[in-house]
């Protein structure tokens, strides 16, 4: 099926921004800290997606040299630079997630809850 309106409407941007907002929504509105971390991963991946979709070229192939195509015409290959950026950023994102999870584990051990409101309540209780 052909959905022409999609081409006109710059749909990738709309969807990527929607995904980004879902991630941010998870980070700001959700009270559970694990949910916040999930929201963080969604937020980050949406940025990667933005890079990757910007790297595409109509009618191009993956950025691995194909002897049949040669390397003279840059329009034949996808743009490798954003992909490299995403690779780097992706690993950074996972590293952040891992550290976030360790912090979660530690604070759950100390306070026994992941709920933000409850956590603050217990912190106050212990402080006094």
């Amino acid at each position, binding site marked *: 099926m052909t959905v022409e309106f999609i081409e006109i409407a710059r749909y990738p941007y709309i969807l990527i921004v929607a995904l980004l907002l879902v991630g941010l929504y998870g980070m700001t509105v959700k009270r559970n800290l694990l949910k916040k971390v999930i929201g963080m991963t969604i937020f980050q991946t949406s940025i990667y997606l933005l890079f990757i979709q910007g790297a595409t070229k109509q009618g191009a192939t993956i*950025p691995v040299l194909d002897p049949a195509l040669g390397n003279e015409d840059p*329009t034949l290959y996808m743009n490798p630079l954003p992909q490299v950026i995403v690779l780097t950023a992706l690993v950074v994102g996972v590293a952040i997630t891992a550290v976030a999870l*360790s*912090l979660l584990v530690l604070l759950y051990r100390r306070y026994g809850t992941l709920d933000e409101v409850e956590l603050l309540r217990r912190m106050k209780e212990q402080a006094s």
Partner: protein
Amino acid sequence: MRFASILLLAAVGGFLLWGSGDLPQRGDPESPASTGISTYYIQNAYHDSDTPNMVTAVLADYRGFDTFGEAVVVTAAALSCLVILLRRRRREDGSETGVFPDLDGDAPGGAA
């Protein structure tokens, strides 16, 4: 609070979409990104380093420092997790234990 954050999110989304109006169309071969420096990588990766996979060439050579930084990020993350989660106790003779001290001899978790 909840309502306010959602309103704020909507504003952020609107702003981003407004800005994306001037970004190139999806898959446009004439976009700045596609005609910019990336053409150099596509055309020269194989000449410069015998590497057909342009991503690898860019990753490890042209922008090798990013990758080095990223490698450090991974190591730093490992280090951070250890610093956050583990404590090292002094043994009674005053010497220090290894990184995973309390677990020596215990079951692999040591925790429930």
